[in-house]
Every structure is written in C-alpha cells, then in structure tokens.
C-alpha cells in the first residue's frame, strides 16, 4: 500500500517535472491526428525554422526576466542593431578601402557580410548595455525604459534608412547560416539556437555571472546587503539579452537575405509569452532556460498545427492567448499549492 502511494507520487512528481515534455508529446499526437502530413520531414523542418528566431529572443527575455527586469526593446533592437551595423560597416569600408559596400539608394549590399555580422552582435550588446545603464543608473523602471529605447530605435532606424529595405541577394556567403540544412533535414540555425540555449543554461547555472543574475533577481535587497554590485549584474543580464538579440538578428538577416526596417511582428510579447510558458517567473529569480527552449518548441508546434488545421492568424492569436492564460493560471495554482504546503499565507 505504502509502496503504491510512493510510486503514484513518484509518477506524479515526474509528470510535474517534465510537464512541458508531456505537452509536446500530446501536441505531436494531436498534430498527427489532425493532419498526417504533420510528421513529414518537410513540416518538421518548417517547425524547426520557426523555432530559432522566437526561441533566441525568448532566451534573451528569459535572462532579463530572471534578473527581475523586462526588455520590451528586443523587437526594435532586432532591426536597429543590424541596421546600424550595416551603416557602420559601410562607413569603415568607404573610409579604409575607399569602396562603399552599400550601393547607393538601391539598398543592395556588395560585400562585407562578416563585418556586418560581427558588428551586429556588438551593437546588440551595446544596446543591452544602454538599457541596463538607463535602468540602473537613471532609476527608470525597465518597463518604461525599454519602451522608450524601443521608440527611439524604431524612429531612428526609419530616419537613417528612410524606410529602405537592405538586400544581401548579391552576397552568396550571407545565406550560409540561415539556409544551410544538415542532411537536408535539420536547419543550421536550429543547431545554433540549440547550442546557444545549452550554453546559456550552463552559464546561468555554473558561472558567477549566472548565479549573480539569479540572486539579484530573486531578492535585490538581500543581494546588495551580501555585497553584490547589483547594478553591475543587472547590466550584465541586459547585455546577455542583447547578445541573444544580436545572434537572432544575424540569423534573421541571413534567412531573409536582407533586412526590412518595418518589422511589425510583436516580438516582445511573443518572447515574454514563451519565457513565461517555459516557467520563468515574472517576479524574478526563478525558472530555467531549458523550459524556455521547450516552450519555444511548444509554440512553434502549436502555430504549425493551427495552420495545418486551417485556422487563420486571428484565430491563432485567440488560441495562443488562451493558452498563455491557462498556463499562467496553471503555474500560479502550482505555486499556491507549494506555498500552502509551506504554510505561508498568500495575500
């Protein structure tokens, strides 16, 4: 009898710990029943491609959320960083090689992809640094600070480019990252996402920076009183978030073979939704990025299934929203149960 209950509780706890894997498994079954083509290699490839951009942004958002901040500027940074990188690279080429790479008003690039890619990542980190400084040194809450920087970047990228899309069609090496498929099945960008995610998961758990970010997010006052430079670790978390945005925008450019300034997709909200689905607590200091990676897969499969089932984008928005609400409620009920077990009174 006792054996039985312990077995039951073990199953229950395993299920609770691997809840997201169960969701993914259920989704695969549902997807296959709706449309057998769901499990075809081509469709799986589509799902993996869909994972990378949202996944990398959600990783960045997770890091920001863990440090008890929020970054609403990632959508704007996703185009502002590569845009400024392209213009900086163009300036460098014109100045040192006397050969501009951005061809006049046509928006075609004639070379310099690697410089652009490197500068993109550097600028994205710099944007994160700026966000961090505004939040910590100017005391502006991150919610407002990053909305402000997002407006600034959105406006400036239109001012600088005059809304002109930039194309990499003429540079063959530019498509390597985004378009390569290993064995014709697994996109290279998905591998990049996987490696980045695992590295971040490792770094957050095993390095000083990671542990400090968790500590600062969990209880800033306690972290400061135990001698941590909370401002510095907050800035680091924004910079890590910027790094993720930088990698995402390089992959994005490479996949799209160009850069369109007027991106209107709600990247910020998607990334927050994915991070929260993955169990990152919005009140900071809790959750891990494995959850975020699983949630990325869940969202990609969900949207794909809805597509295959013939739903339009409006229905997709409604269904995604419902799932976010349900998951939020689920996580909260689980946390409330934990607090009741600890006999804490929840207000």
């Amino acid at each position: 009898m006792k054996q039985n209950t312990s077995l039951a509780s073990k199953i229950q706890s395993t299920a609770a710990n691997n809840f997201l894997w169960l969701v993914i498994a259920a989704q695969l079954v549902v997807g296959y029943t709706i449309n057998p083509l769901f499990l075809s290699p081509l469709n799986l490839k589509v799902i993996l491609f869909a994972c990378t951009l949202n996944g990398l942004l959600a990783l960045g958002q997770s890091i920001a959320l863990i440090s008890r901040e929020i970054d609403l500027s990632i959508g704007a940074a996703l185009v502002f960083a590569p845009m400024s990188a392209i213009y900086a690279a163009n300036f460098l080429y014109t100045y040192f090689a006397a050969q501009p790479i951005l061809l006049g008003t046509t928006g075609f690039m004639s070379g310099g992809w690697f410089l652009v890619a490197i500068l993109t990542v550097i600028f994205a980190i710099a944007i994160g640094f700026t966000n961090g400084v505004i939040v910590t040194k100017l005391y502006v809450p991150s919610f407002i600070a990053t909305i402000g920087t997002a407006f600034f970047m959105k406006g400036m990228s239109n001012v600088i480019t005059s809304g002109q899309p930039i194309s990499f069609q003429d540079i063959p090496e530019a498509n390597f990252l985004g378009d390569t498929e290993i064995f014709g099945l697994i996109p290279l960008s998905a591998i990049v996402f996987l490696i980045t995610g695992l590295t971040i998961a490792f770094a957050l758990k095993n390095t000083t920076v990671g542990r400090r970010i968790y500590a600062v997010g969990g209880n800033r006052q306690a972290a400061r009183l135990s001698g941590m430079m909370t401002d510095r670790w907050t800035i680091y978390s924004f910079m890590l978030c910027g790094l993720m945005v930088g990698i995402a925008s390089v992959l994005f450019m490479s996949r799209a073979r160009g850069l369109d300034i007027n991106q209107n997709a709600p990247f910020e909200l998607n990334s927050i939704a994915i991070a929260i689905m993955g169990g990152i607590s919005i009140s900071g200091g809790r959750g891990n990025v494995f959850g975020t990676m699983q949630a990325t897969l869940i969202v990609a499969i969900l949207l794909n299934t809805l597509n295959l089932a013939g739903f339009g984008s409006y229905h997709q928005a409604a269904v995604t929203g419902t799932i976010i609400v349900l998951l939020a409620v689920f996580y909260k009920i689980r946390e409330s149960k934990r607090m009741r077990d600890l006999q804490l009174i929840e207000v």
Partner: protein
Amino acid sequence: MASNQIQRIARALNVGNGIAVSLLILLVLIVVASVLVPNFSHAQNISNILRVFSSAGIMAIGLCLVMLTGEIDVSVGSIMSLSVMVSTIFLDSNEIVSLVVLVVVGAICGLINGILVAVVKAPSLMITIGTLSVFSGLSTIVVNAQYKYITEAYPVILGVAKSEFFGLPSAFLYCLTFAILTWIWTNRTAFGKSMYYVGANKRAAFMSGIHIVRVKIVAFVVCGILASISGMMIAAQIGRAKSDIGAGYEVTAIAIAVLGGTSLFGGRGSTLGVLTGMITLGVMTNILALSRMGSYMEIAMKGALVIAVVFVYELQRRLAR
C-alpha cells in the same frame, strides 16, 4: 547643507501624490514650447492637442486605477478593439443599445482580467498579455475583419464624441469629468482609498481587513469600461471602426499614466496627475510635430523624452527620501 535644502525642495514636491511634479514638468514643457515653437499658443492648436489625446487620457485614467492597486493591464488596447467591434454590430439597429453593449463588453473584459488576476492571483502582466491576444483575435473574428464607417447616419454617437462645449472638445470634458470623479472616489471614499492601500502594501492591507480581491476586480472592471468608452471616442473621431483600432494604444495609455506620476509598483499616483500626464504627452508630441523633424524623428525623440521625464520623477522620489 545644500543637500538638506535639495531634500526639502524634493519633499515639498511630494504634494498631491506626484501632481506637483507632473505640473512642474508640464509647465517647463509649455514654457519651452511657447518660446521655441511659434504657433504653439494658438487656441486652435491647444484645442487640437486636447481633442487628440483625451481619448487615450480616458483610457489612462482606468489604467491608473489598476496601476494604483499594484497591477498592470496591457490588454486595454484589445478591450477597446473588442468592445467597439461588438458594439458596431448593433449600431444599425439602435445606437443607444450599441452604446450599452459597448460598455457591457468593456466591463466583461475587465471582469475576466480582474477575476484571473485577483482570485487566481496570477501575475497581471502574464494574464493581460494572454487576454491581449484573445481579445484582439476575437475582435477580428466577431466582425470577419470588416470595417464600419461611423458617418452622419449615427447622430447620437457623433453628438457624444465629436461635439464642442465652450470651445472645448467634448472628449476633453469627459476626460476631465472622469479624472475628477475618480479622484474624489480614490481620495474621499473608503473603498476608493483602499486602492492605494492595496498597491502600497498588500500584506498590510490584507491584515487590516481590506477585501483585496474585490478592490482589484473593481479596478479592472472600471479600467475595461473606460477603455471601451475611449474606443468609441476614437472610432467616432476617425470616422471608422476597424478591428485593429486599439492596437498599440496600451503603450500610449501606459506612457500617459507614467508621465502623470503613476508608479508602476503601485500605491503612488493620482487620476488628476493622469490628466496632466495626458496634456504633457500631447504637448510633447505637438512640439515635436510643429518643429518639423519628420514623424520618425518624432517617435525617436518621444522615446527619449519619456525616459527623461520618468527619470525626473524617480530623482525627485529618491531625493525626498
């Protein structure tokens, strides 16, 4: 000695829960504007500022109530879209009915948010991001992505939303009325005051017997109602109701509330402050528009200015400590 004086000045600015600071910022902006921008102080220009931003101001008043209780509602824009689109279905049969439907839908959306946030106690940012998608999806689904033109055929709505009294646009008068009424509510009645208490210290409020769930639900419902009203004002002003009418308005509303001195952490701010915040944002946008930088430069500068203004608030709060 000098730091002592700075602290005293900063404390003096605490008057009226941030109203003093917001008025000061507004004053500085207005002085700058009337010196630098030639046509700023023209009566028509002032009236335009008030007309354009009052609808968002009405929404921000509701949002301010939610923010006072320490929560946030990012779904206000979608509530606006959904309630306007549902009410347009009834527009041709009876205008009064459609206005009632408008408010009822807004209230129901607010109630859903409020129940999820207050009863389940899930974080409001998460919940309202979810309901943002749900409501905006539904607003397109209920009308099959069709437009509705709000023309002379609907005299009641146009009369309510577009008329002028004493040279002031009616939208501004509603905004003013709502701001004063909610200010009296939150500062002079026991139930209204408890919004501040819940936001400032939830545990203390709970211990002193305040029904936190009820306070939060009421705040969300009022927020939903005000969002729906502002939606109809905007629809009447631009003469067309489309299902993405509220998209992005949540950012404007949050910006107005924050510029008016409402704290994102709850318990601080006032609805009269929101009124000044509304005018501040209006004046800011107007200065940038009249200085002919171009609309994108305007967006960029607006972002920088919002950060600067919030910095001033936080500086004052820190110095007053």
